[in-house]
């Protein structure tokens, strides 16, 4: 009995040390076994893989859609509501939520010229509130006096006018309303309405305006509750010399093309630079970027994005449950086989590896298939877009989007979903494998 040395029981035999280190089976064999094991129950494998693929595809598509809505929404906010930023008085800056006529920029013309000289498109506006009366009906309304000559340099109201509308003309007391407002009040083009408000000095004032245009914009917030009139008409009736703000358009980037919807560090830097340069000549004025003008919107978007993340997480959870179930069954039906392999001296890590590899292959196939389908759907969404106008009707849900929008590419999501699909699947397989290996060899072999 020379071969049964005590050395064998107490330490790894020197002669076969290399094999012992291998943990009982080389990786290639374990991988091949895992691959073959997928064919034991083809249907189960296919269903699990398809479930993961669908989840990954939906995840990629939804992410693109939500990203697209966000992008579109942000753009529409800037193009229809805020501009890329504003120049207001310091006093107004302290209280951005309460636009007040008393915070008047009197020297707005030289200011506007200075901005234009820097290559920044801009337009003056006067914002105020009032009550709109027509027939028996009335409603509170936000009114904006716009300069018909330059407003288009910053905003896109004119593009949103419905057929038969005309644009505002300086000196003529016309009014443009959103179509949701005109529908609410039963107004049509050519009707005269009354707007009651207070002047700069607090006196009651009644404006009589003719409805010259009806607009339906992609930004639902201006389709209801907002009216536009010529700046000079507003200034005259409100007894003002100046304006409440100068809206800023695209910011020159030094990259040749101005940036229409500037964000982040670039925007902050530009606004800071503008303040530094304007400060000397116009001590009364201060520039502010659009995110500060839309804090409510951004807060809302934050909530939405966390609930969207929750939704995406749920989608992945469903796939995870599917894989977990499949691996649980696969491990359970192979317990006796594990017993055999352990009896033969294969170690637990190698057995665990077969299950982890098996799940990893499902993860890889599923996520790759999901990636291809999801990317194809995203490609379509980015290039053709979808029309959601029927979806919400004329109700604003916070997004500044109506009608059609397009998807956005998010390479991060594409990569993450594949990596996550593979790694999570592998991690999921660890649990049932570990539980099976907690049984001793004899229990495994007795398992029915």
């Amino acid at each position: 009995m020379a071969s049964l040395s005590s050395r064998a029981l107490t330490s790894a035999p020197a002669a076969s040390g290399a094999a012992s280190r291998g943990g009982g089976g080389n990786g290639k064999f374990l991988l091949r076994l895992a691959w073959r094991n997928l064919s034991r129950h083809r249907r189960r494998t296919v269903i699990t893989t398809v479930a993961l693929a669908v989840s990954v595809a939906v995840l990629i598509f939804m992410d693109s859609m939500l990203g697209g809505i966000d992008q579109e929404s942000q753009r529409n906010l800037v193009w229809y509501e805020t501009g890329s930023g504003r120049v207001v008085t310091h006093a107004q800056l302290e209280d951005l939520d309460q636009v007040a006529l008393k915070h008047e920029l009197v020297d707005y013309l030289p200011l506007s010229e200075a901005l234009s000289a820097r290559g920044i498109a801009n337009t003056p506006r006067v914002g105020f509130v009032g009550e709109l009366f027509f027939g028996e009906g009335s409603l509170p309304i936000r009114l904006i006096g716009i300069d018909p000559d330059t407003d288009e340099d910053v905003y896109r109201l004119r593009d949103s006018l419905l057929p038969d509308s005309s644009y505002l003309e300086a000196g003529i007391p016309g009014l443009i309303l959103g179509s949701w407002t005109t529908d609410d009040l039963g107004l049509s083009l050519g009707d005269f309405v009354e707007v009651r408000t207070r002047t700069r000095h607090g006196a009651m004032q009644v404006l009589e305006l003719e409805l010259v245009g009806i607009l339906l914009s992609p930004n639902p917030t201006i389709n209801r509750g907002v009216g536009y009139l010529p700046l000079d008409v507003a200034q005259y009736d409100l007894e003002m010399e100046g304006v409440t703000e100068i809206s800023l358009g695209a910011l020159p980037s030094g990259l040749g093309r101005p940036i229409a919807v500037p964000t982040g560090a670039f925007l902050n830097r530009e606004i800071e630079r503008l303040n530094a340069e304007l400060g000397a000549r116009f001590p009364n004025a201060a520039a502010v970027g659009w995110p500060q003008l839309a804090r409510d919107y951004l807060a809302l978007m934050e909530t939405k994005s966390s609930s969207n993340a929750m939704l995406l997480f749920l989608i992945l959870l469903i796939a995870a449950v599917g894989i977990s179930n499949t691996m649980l069954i696969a491990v359970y039906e192979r317990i006796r086989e594990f017993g055999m392999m352990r009896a033969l001296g294969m170690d637990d890590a190698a057995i665990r590896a077969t299950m982890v590899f098996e799940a990893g292959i499902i993860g890889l196939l599923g996520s790759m298939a999901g990636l291809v389908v999801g990317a194809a759907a995203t490609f379509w969404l980015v290039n053709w877009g979808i029309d959601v106008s029927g979806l919400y009707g004329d109700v604003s849900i916070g997004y500044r989007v109506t009608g059609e929008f397009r998807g956005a590419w998010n390479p991060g999501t594409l990569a993450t979903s594949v990596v996550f699909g593979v790694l999570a699947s592998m991690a999921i397989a660890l649990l049932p494998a570990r539980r099976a290996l907690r049984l001793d060899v004899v229990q495994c072999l007795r398992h029915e």
Partner: protein
Amino acid sequence: MISVDNVTKVYRSGSTEVAALRGVSLQVEDGSFLAIAGPSGSGKTTLLNLIGCLDTASSGEVIIGGVRVSDSNRKQLALFRRHHLGFIFQSFNLIPVLTAYENVSFALSLLIRDRTRVRDRTMAILADVGLADMADRRPGELSGGQQQRVAIARALVKGPDIVLADEPTANVDSETGEGLLELMRELNRRHSTTFLFSTHDGMVMDYADRLVTLQDGRITGDETRPAESQSAAAAGSG
């Protein structure tokens, strides 16, 4: 040399205790072809599991090649099994998605990295069990007897010192079983590998050169048979 010294094994399930072995002592010489017989529940599988280092005794000692099994931890036992023991199971326990060749070579590749050596030895042992031309078939494409031959090849491919076979012929018909026994005895003689198997089957007992009888966890008979009587028995039943 296998030495089982006054071994007991008690299984506890909840409040009930089952004494599967009650003071079993047994010495097995190298190269033996030993059958353990006994009625169902007498402790045959339990004894084989202890000798096969798959389980540990409640008391007493199992000593293989001078080494106490109870002194080793789980990892050392796995390593020991890998290098020195072969197993044949009643229900074959082949991996259904691997070919006959792969089922055998995987056991060897746990020890040897050299691919050509693994291939040569696997093909040689498959030829020994008469399956050289079925190496590429999966278990589902083989008869029960052929599957058990693959299992025998798997147990023997690494040249173990001891092969433990728990009712190796119980799942095949008697003619096939006899073929398997012939094969095992031949391999036992050629490689002087110790074979220990358990059985219910009188024909299997006839092949053994030593027959140990268990009853109720105790050894009640231990009979060494001369070589002539085995051949006669084999001839008689064949």
